[in-house]
């Protein structure tokens, strides 16, 4: 709480007389290799400071927030219960007496440096599972809300029954809180924080910057529009509202997630949108169908439903196959991977669901039309089974979030290149491998008019202020190849990193080049 208050003060107070606190020393020292974990970590500054964030990333990628105490210019934090050997990163941020926050990252090793220092995949698996469950809840509420108005508009073609209207209203009202939680938990996942941090603004800001926010906004708009459509009577306005709600719901699926990000996006985006539109209609119709079976004109409604559902299922299967092919590439990438197992489970359930649906259409619906007494109860039972299967499939689809698709694992990780061009200087940056984790940095410099530029010293600084990662500094050294080399430096998260190059040209002249590099997962 105290930290949150300091943070608020720092963010909102116009401050004067900014003296920058400077780190004078650390125990353990940066880059130190220790035999055993020390009892505590100390940071010594040139002036009194108050700690804001001390986040320790362990060799397994788990992040722990340490409690720091400040005495004069020394910040001390106890390292309790830390036993694993390997590489640790301490991202620290302190505020000096005048309110200016400064930060940095300290790296030290226990025993020996980890072969694979903290990687983003391990960060906050708990938050990732929570995010996955909430995403499922959001999808379910949107499907029920939008499905109800679509069903009323295009299958019943009349007034929705009171049961259906009530179900749609409940689902639509649940969409907003579910969506808000999705944003917060996404932030937890990004910053690898504990759930209690939802009481602080940090995860919310981080979550708002993520693409999932667009998904949440579109979902909420779709749910509200659909609830509105059900109150519009039976005219063409209602039908139009229902269609727009379907479009927004479908786009919400395309706004975030692995699926829509698969190259080529010109194929992936429409495929995700069509897949989502078909599934929203089909899954969203199941509950209204169950209600409609109690009515007098059940047979007519079943026929109208089938007339739309059969093309929808074709779209669903074709778009699903396209997306699977884009994600997996060849089948070899799927074998044994977590993604492959989730996908296989989903396909088995889809096959069963299609079987149940086919029986409904070709056996039970004709039976109902012939007014066989057992047809209606059988059909109700079958639709309930479809609902359960549908929910299980949606849950599995939300679970894809937890597993990187084979295209991410199989593709050799190409270096990431960036080029900065200013009037005075140009820099070529190469990060190898071009993804989050330990990377080596290679730099080449030229003057603005392509002449040779040999700085006396070069420093590269990485920072991700949005995720609360303070600047990580590395001195680059000139190699025999004329290029400058730094690292390996561990960039713990994917996303936009601010890269700053500080070149010393003469004793009295420096050049500073900055760029934002998007580091993939």
């Amino acid at each position, binding site marked *: 709480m105290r930290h949150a208050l300091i943070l608020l003060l720092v963010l909102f107070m116009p401050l*004067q007389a*900014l003296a920058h606190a400077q780190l*004078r020393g650390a125990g353990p020292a940066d880059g130190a290799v220790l035999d055993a974990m020390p009892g505590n970590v100390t940071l010594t500054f040139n002036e009194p400071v108050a700690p804001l964030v001390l986040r320790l990333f362990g060799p397994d990628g788990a992040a722990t927030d340490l409690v720091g105490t400040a005495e004069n210019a020394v910040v001390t934090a106890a390292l309790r219960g830390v036993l694993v050997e390997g590489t640790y990163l301490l991202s620290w941020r302190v505020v000096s007496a005048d309110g200016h926050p400064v930060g940095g990252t300290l790296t030290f090793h226990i025993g020996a440096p980890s072969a694979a220092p903290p990687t983003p995949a391990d960060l906050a698996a708990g938050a990732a599972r929570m995010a996955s469950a909430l995403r499922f809840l959001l999808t379910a509420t949107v499907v029920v809300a939008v499905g109800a108005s679509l069903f009323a508009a295009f299958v019943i073609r009349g007034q929705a029954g009171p049961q259906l209207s009530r179900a749609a209203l409940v689902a639509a009202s649940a969409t907003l809180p579910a969506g808000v939680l999705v944003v917060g938990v996404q932030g937890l996942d990004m910053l690898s924080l504990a759930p209690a941090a939802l009481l602080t603004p940090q995860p919310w800001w981080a979550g708002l910057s993520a693409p999932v926010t667009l998904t949440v906004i579109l979902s909420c708009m779709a749910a509200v529009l659909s609830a509105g459509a059900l109150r519009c009577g039976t005219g063409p306005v209602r039908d139009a509202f229902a269609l727009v709600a379907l479009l927004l719901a479908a786009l919400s699926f395309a706004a975030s997630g692995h699926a829509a990000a698969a190259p080529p996006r010109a194929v992936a985006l429409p495929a995700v949108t069509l897949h989502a539109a078909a599934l929203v209609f089909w899954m969203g119709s199941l509950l209204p169908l169950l209600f409609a079976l109690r009515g007098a004109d059940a047979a007519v409604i079943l026929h109208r439903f089938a007339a739309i559902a059969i093309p929808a299922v074709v779209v669903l299967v074709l778009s699903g196959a396209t997306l699977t092919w884009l994600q997996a590439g060849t089948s070899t990438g799927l074998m044994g991977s977590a993604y492959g197992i989730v996908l296989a489970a989903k396909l088995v359930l889809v096959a069963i669901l299609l079987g149940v649906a086919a029986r409904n259409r070709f056996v039970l619906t004709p039976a109902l039309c012939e007014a066989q007494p057992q047809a209606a109860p059988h059909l109700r039972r079958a639709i309930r089974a479809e609902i359960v299967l549908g929910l299980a499939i949606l849950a599995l689809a939300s679970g894809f979030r937890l597993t990187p698709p084979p295209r991410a694992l199989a593709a050799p990780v190409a270096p990431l290149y960036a080029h900065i061009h200013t009037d005075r200087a140009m820099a070529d940056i190469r990060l190898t491998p071009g993804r989050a984790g330990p990377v080596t940095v290679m730099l080449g410099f030229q003057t603005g008019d392509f002449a040779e530029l040999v700085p006396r010293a070069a420093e590269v600084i990485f920072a991700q*202020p949005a995720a609360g990662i303070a600047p990580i500094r590395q001195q680059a050294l000139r190699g025999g190849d004329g290029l400058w080399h730094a690292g390996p430096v561990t960039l713990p998260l994917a996303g936009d990193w601010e890269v700053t190059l500080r070149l010393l040209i003469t*004793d*009295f002249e420096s*050049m*500073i080049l*900055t760029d934002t590099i*998007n580091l993939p997962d």
Partner: protein
Amino acid sequence: MKHILAIAVLALPFAAATKAAAHATFAEREVVQNQTSRLTLRVPHGCGDEATLRVRVQIPEGVIATQPMVKAGWELQTVTGPYANAHAIHGNSVTEGVREIIWSGELPDAFYDEFVFRVRVTEEVPAGAMLYIPVVQECANGAERWIEIPAAGQDSHDLEDPAPGVMVVPAAPAGHGH
């Protein structure tokens, strides 16, 4: 990938009105064009925790007739060289002068000191703008370089190692002695 050509953007959303106390700064706020002005360089700390062994000041173009003040316990050196443009003082043309001042001695990290010199800021330096004078503190194993000059529209508080600066003001039109 977007290229941001801004120089030294450290995303610190603060409005700041006064100079940073931990940076090397001048005690004076302003200098008057075409007058001899005294500048007092304030050095608040060493490099990390090392003692400062040399203080070097680079005199920019348009700043002439530089004279450092001697300092007890410190050896004083100057580097002279030609100016880019000739300047007229009292009818004489001046084409060269001090381009760098070097004080050598020892200033422990925990102590504070001031280094004084006189300059004449000519009209070549625009009035109404800050004049930045790069300074380097050299220590046994490193250096603290106050050499970053803000680009147009940039605040010097956004720089990590800003050069100390003073505001240049035009000379009063009348009552000017010589």
